[in-house]
């Protein structure tokens, strides 16, 4: 079963049939490590439509970065990747390495946390910005240079005709990240993958980069997958959110629904743990313990050992399925909660069959388990 496709009201620029730019289905990544196999990602599916932003949220070890690396064929060699990945309708997992590299290079741009891992310190930024274009679009040197100036201008670098000949060390951190974004956009990719692109930047610079990517997405119709641990950034940029924990998606849905009515105890707890302006001095609703290592994942629900709800013994032994609680909004828990913090009934009691129709599960309280859920009692 594939993920609910984000409805895309945007006109134009879409592949025929409004197909998602990238669709991942049942992706699983196992890493071979010295201490045995580590299941970094398990059964992940989502898709992103043109002009839309999907935020992948999670803490360290949640599998958020590995998901996109594996999907685009960039997982480390020790990784075993299974599942299906379609980029603009073409299946990536069965392509030859050469074809995949070409298809990816033409259609996907990447922005990583540290711009210096992408930039070559000894080349001018102009050369680097267009390096990929020359290869993929068959440009001449001169065309490439004027395209580089255009791109630097697009991402807001002042005096681009002069700066095109500068080297990376002559730019500030925020400006370097703009250069990397220009590089990522050089081949006019349909998809931009941004992995913690603002984590190393100051907040005022972060605000500039967030604004820049939102603006480019609107103007160019690029689909964006933004990987982050910062819920504030997610609230500002995402159309849909997938929250990951222990290698799996635990909650997925439209950004408004996930923030206003988080259905998974983990999402609720994360939102509650943030210091809020004007609430200084209060004890924060901390989550006990630490996120699990992919080497040592609990059986059953990975969040169970830290969960404030702690439904029943089943949570410790059985993996909860991802079930709909509202249209396009799914959670992986036996104890989803509703907007008011109350319990909905376990929509999976009908044993797997109940996941078909989102409307029946939507707040549908056939409440045998209602007593199980208590508000966070801290």
């Amino acid at each position, binding site marked *: 079963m594939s993920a609910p496709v984000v409805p895309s009201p945007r006109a134009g620029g879409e592949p025929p049939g409004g197909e998602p730019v990238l669709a991942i289905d049942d992706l699983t990544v196992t890493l071979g490590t010295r201490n045995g196999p580590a299941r970094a990602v398990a059964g992940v599916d989502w898709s992103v439509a043109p002009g839309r932003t999907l935020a992948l949220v999670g803490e360290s070890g949640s599998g958020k970065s590995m998901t996109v690396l594996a999907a685009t064929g960039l997982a480390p060699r020790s990784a075993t990747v299974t599942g299906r990945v379609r980029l603009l309708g073409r299946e990536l997992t069965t392509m030859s390495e050469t074809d995949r590299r070409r298809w990816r290079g033409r259609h996907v741009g990447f922005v990583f946390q540290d711009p210096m891992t992408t930039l070559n310190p000894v080349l001018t930024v102009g050369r680097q910005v267009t390096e990929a274009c020359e290869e993929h679009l068959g440009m001449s040197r001169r065309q490439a240079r004027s395209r580089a100036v255009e791109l630097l*201008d697009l991402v807001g670098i002042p005096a681009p005709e002069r700066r095109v000949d500068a080297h990376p060390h002559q730019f500030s951190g925020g400006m370097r990240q703009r250069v990397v974004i220009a590089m990522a956009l050089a081949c006019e990719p349909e998809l931009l993958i941004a992995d913690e692109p603002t984590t190393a930047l100051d907040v*005022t610079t972060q605000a500039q980069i967030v604004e820049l990517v939102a603006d480019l997405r609107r103007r160019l119709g690029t689909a964006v997958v933004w990987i982050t641990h910062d819920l504030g950034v997610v*609230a*500002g940029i995402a159309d849909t959110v997938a929250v990951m924990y222990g290698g799996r998606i635990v909650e997925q849905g439209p950004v408004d629904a996930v923030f206003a009515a988080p259905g998974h105890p983990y999402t609720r*707890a994360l939102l509650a743990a*943030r210091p809020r*302006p004007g609430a200084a001095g209060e004890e924060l*609703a901390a989550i006990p313990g630490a*996120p699990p290592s992919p080497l040592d994942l609990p059986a059953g629900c990975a969040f169970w050992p830290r969960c404030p709800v702690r439904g029943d013994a089943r949570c410790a032994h059985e993996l909860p399925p991802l079930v709909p609680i509202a249209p396009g909004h799914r959670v992986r828990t036996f104890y989803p909660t509703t907007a008011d913090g109350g319990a909905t009934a376990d929509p999976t009691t009908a044993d797997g069959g109940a996941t078909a129709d989102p409307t029946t599960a939507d707040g549908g309280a056939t409440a045998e388990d209602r007593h199980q859920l208590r508000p966070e009692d801290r």
Partner: protein
Amino acid sequence: MSTAAVAEIDDLTVWFPSPGGPPVRAVDGVSLTVRAGETLGLVGESGSGKSTTGLALLRLVDPTTGRIRVGGEDVTGWSRRRLRGLRRRVAMVFQDPQASLDPRRTVGASIAEPLVVHRLAGSADARRRRVAELLDLVGLRPETAGRHPHELSGGQRQRVGIARALAGEPDLIVLDEPIASLDLSVQAQILNLLRRLQRDLGLTYLFIAHDLAAVEHLSDRIAVMYLGRIVETGTPTQLWREPAHPYTAALLSAIPVADPRVERDRRRIILSGELPSPTDPPSGCRFRTRCPQARPDCAETDPPAVEVAPGHRAACLYAGEAVRAMRADPPAPVTGGPR
């Protein structure tokens, strides 16, 4: 206020020589007082000089000019030998406990080190008891003493860092970005721990961080730094409700809020341009090159800190007024690109 000052920094400058050029003015005229039992938050972005200020307080960097007093004693000119005593009275918790703990030593040995250096617990037995007590204080089990840092999670390592800072019963703890490298779900644990320890042990903190939300949560007063200077000080409420310096207002408006509805309707003050070089700060007000409300005289006059309300000061010629004007008429968001 009558509360005793634990530490006072008076017109501190820290300039670092830079080869073949003018010095880097990391801290350039900072005065602040940390009072007993309070948390003073020091916020600013990279290059603001906040960490250098903290290091100068422990004399881990040497002041170029200015005075530093700890517990009423001028420690500015103290010799290396006397400084050992200072470092019992002022302790530090660093951002990355992985880097600040010796990987080859057990947790117990790391926590006991200040006890040995400052000769605080006589026998090995007394040290062991004290280490167990310190571990208990920070919420770790006694057997953690025998573990090595790599066997612990990031949050546990930071607890060890805090236990080590507590070992010498310091008068002041400088917390330099203590939660910045921790997972979100763990940050709240550490903030709660710091608050509980302060309440139970009567600790005094200088809390240095770039994360305004966390600083606000823990601090009684906040000082905001920009390019080597303090631009505004006040209580968290004063700063959130009515920032008087345009930089504080911009910084606050840049913090993303975890609520998509708020984010959509938000009018953000996006600063244009870049942080000027600390080797050659702008004349007059240092923020004027990026200030949406800069006026001609801002280039002429170095603005002194003026009191805009009791306990609330801002170094802006148009303190209060400029922010009100910005909020009434925010500039179009500047992304720099052509529209």
